[in-house]
């Protein structure tokens, strides 16, 4: 039991209250504020029980990023940077923990045809209450 969640979202400081109920039951958050940050932290995906990814993300907050990360900014291939990140997590890195999309983008799985990627859940951020988020994530955690 790692009790650790990787949350990749540049709006963390604004909406951190969303995860309060989950933190209250003993989970710790590891935050990545950009796709590149998430890329680096997800290399050790074995440390996490869950990876939560926002779709609207900046590529990097550093001067440079690897080509693979820069490619996620290709708008013709990926509607959002986070879509490229999720694809990398599930198809290239082949993470073995649940990957959940938490975003304001409505129904990205149908919209971007991500059905067969193995995304665990997709939760809409807009108007979301912390208790609702906890209910949703508890399906994938031992809460």
């Amino acid at each position, binding site marked *: 039991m790692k009790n650790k969640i990787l949350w990749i979202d540049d*709006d963390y400081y*604004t*909406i*951190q*209250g*969303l995860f*309060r*109920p989950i933190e209250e039951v003993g989970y710790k958050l590891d935050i990545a504020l950009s796709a590149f940050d998430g890329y680096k932290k997800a290399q050790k995906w074995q440390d996490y029980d869950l990876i939560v990814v926002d779709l*609207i993300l900046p590529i990097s907050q550093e001067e440079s990023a690897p080509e693979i990360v820069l490619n996620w900014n290709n708008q013709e291939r990926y509607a959002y940077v986070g879509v490229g990140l999720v694809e990398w997590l599930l198809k290239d890195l082949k993470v073995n923990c649940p990957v959940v999309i938490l975003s*304001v983008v*409505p*129904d990205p799985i*149908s*919209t971007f045809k991500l059905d067969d990627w193995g995304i665990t859940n997709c939760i*809409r*951020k*807009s*108007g*979301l*209450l*912390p*208790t609702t988020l906890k209910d949703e994530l508890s399906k994938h955690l031992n809460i």
Partner: protein
Amino acid sequence: MAIEIDSSREKAVLTLMSKITSITDLGTLLRVVVQELPNVVGAIGCYIYLQPEYVPEYNGILRRGENEILEENLDDFIVLAATNLDSKKHFIGKAFFNEGEGVTGWVYKNCKPQRIADVTDSQELKSLSADLYWANEYHDGDELYKPGDRRSLLAVPLVLDGDAIGTLKFHATDDKEPFSETSQEIAVIVSQIISGVIRQTWLLAEQSETISQLIETSNKSTFLEVVADVTRHMREMLGCSRSEFFIRSDDGEALRLIIRNGELVNEKSAPEFRRGQNLIGWIFKTGKPLILPNIKQFINGMNLDDESLDKFSVGHEINDEDRFIQYREDPKHEIGTGRVQVISFLAVPIRSKDEEVWGVLCGYRNLSAKFRYPFERSQLILAVSFSSTIALALENERQRRLANLLTKLGTLTQADHLFQTVTENIPKLVASSGCSIFRTESHRGAPYLKLTMTSRKGLIVDKDEMPDIRYELGEGKTGMCGRFQLTLVANHYGNGKIAIERIDREIRRIELEHPNDIVSMLSDITDKKVGLFQLRCENQLSIDERYAVREFAKNIVFSNTGLPSKKMDEHVTDRSNRTWSFIAVPIASDQKLLGVITLARPTAASPFLRGDITLLTSIAGRLASVMNNLRTLEQREQLVMSLGHEINTPLTGILADSENLYRRAPSNTEFQRTAKHNLEQVLRLHMQASAIISVLSEQSSKRQFVKRSLYLPIKEACELFESEAAANGCNILEPRAQEGNFPVIEMCVFDLTIAFKNIVHNAVKYSFRPPANKDLHRTIKISGQPERTRPGFYVISIQNYGVGINSHEIDKGLIFQPYYRGERATDRKRTGSGFGLAHARLVIEELHHGYIRATSIPQGGNAFLTTFFVLLPIDQPK
């Protein structure tokens, strides 16, 4: 009776026949006859007399001489044409012979007419047939002839259906035997032919009115109605036992049978003929085309062992060069054991006003059945008139389709749908093997053209299979200035010069002696930024020249290739040695290039024409306008979405914190009540923000649907406003049925929840605290039931007692308009965004294909019982 004639007279006969069979106008026909006939008969001059009743358009045909003598007597014969009048001062227009008189029933003897009846005792005359009147005479002082002249006259009646309609009269100088027996026989035969041709001109004259009516009707009728009319006329006027219409397929490479005897042919079983196999250049054999050389061999008896040729057809057709070809075969002729069926057919191309072949019209006669004779020339001409009518109908149909397409484009709001509609429909207007749309995009500030949508043979190519084609401006298929096209064309342009043609408005051709002049030339012609250009050169350009061309291309944005010349060597040849014609038309607005539409088809299917460019340019213009609007909408949408994100994110944070505060507040304390109130207000704020953003962005059509219980959005709306309702002295009676009793419908949960929140909040906001005697009304009632009048729909009603809505506001739908504030609501100085009900209508009607209706019934005083009915389909339409 066999007639032997010398070669010069035979040539004269052939010349005459060749000329008169291609004339459709009576006046022209008669003038040609009087000029050519003397050579045939061996005369020095010829007159044609017709009785007035047989002269259509009497005044239009008469050609009077300078010294004519006019006496109005319509019983007289009319001299319609004459040659070699010389000193006789004869006239054209009238003759002084009553019927049975003079040459029309008399013979001359010593310059005095004698009635046939009076000379029947003459052995010389008795030997002649009753139809042939002739005389040799000697001049004896008549002022018409010089003394000593001998004039021989030969008069032959023109007979139709047993009636003499006029007379052919020849005169000659002959000392011994003025008109030989051969001349007499030839004159008789020719008179019969001329009578037939005269009848044909009458027929055409009579039919011209019908044709005029047909053409007039074709402007008001659909294509199929016109075809039905033409089919009837082909049967009645041409005596066709069968008629067929072949129309060019969408890709322009085949002619497809679409209508036979007025009936649409099953598309799956419709025969198609490749270009080069079509009727133009072919004739039919039992419904199948045979190439002309084969038929010629067959007719010459060189291919008789081919068992499949058990039947053959004979026919007439006009080919591409308007040559008239006729095949005739003896109907009684038999080949092997097969029965010979002889069919005469007409094959006439249906041509556009640009002389492009759109199809072929065919008519058939079975010569062994009702009709004994092949089609005549006049009937062929009539068939050409029919084909013109069909062409007009096709053009009208094309204009209708164009108008529909242009209208439809204006209604589309998604770029993909827009491009798909254009790409699918253009081949139906301009036959083409492929249609592509390139859209202007940019990479690091450098514009390029990217293939966005393409169709092959009328079918849209799946995006996954679509090649990733990008061109610099003016390059490749989007213009002739790219290396690719230059290389190809270089092989086909042979004079060593570069030529640029501007073809959108006027042809402007500039030829250069040396490629180095290209830079100055290009700068000369870039007076207008968007245009259609062709650039050709024989040799590869140098690097500098390519650079110049590329710069040029950026300025003119695109150019064109392979049109609209008929010269094959000006087209592009691919690796399979097929030559192609291209059109590339810019999608441009305010001198800004938004993209390019390209079309291609093999030149074997005929090159594109200027009319095609004009049509495509009109579509491109409309497309540019719609793309501009869409781009504006997209920009607005991006702005709204960006703003929405900026507003929603902190709201979500505040919402999360508010719930955390409420959740952790000690029970039954002021702190908890305040936290709860704060949470509710933040939820309301979020709801309003979402509604406003949703209405402004007009994004509803892009939402995704899931199947959920209808109870969920209603319950959430009721819970949110429970406290506010209580504060207003009301309560909310949510549906008693539990989740399981509500239908599961296809919905967009997020939007529908906000829509119900808006409606419920509206009811809460405009509710009165009811008087004691109307305590029942203190409850806002929300209920649901299956809609009885609309199977497959479920209806939710939300009823409150309070501020009403005027009937005209309901009737005109004003209450569902953005920013609208109800007339009674303003009196009460109620607050609101003005987006709530507008959003609800958008979500319910446009997104969920349901209905929202309202009633507001006065209850006395200022109070109204207002009910909103929300009808939602269980399943969304496919």
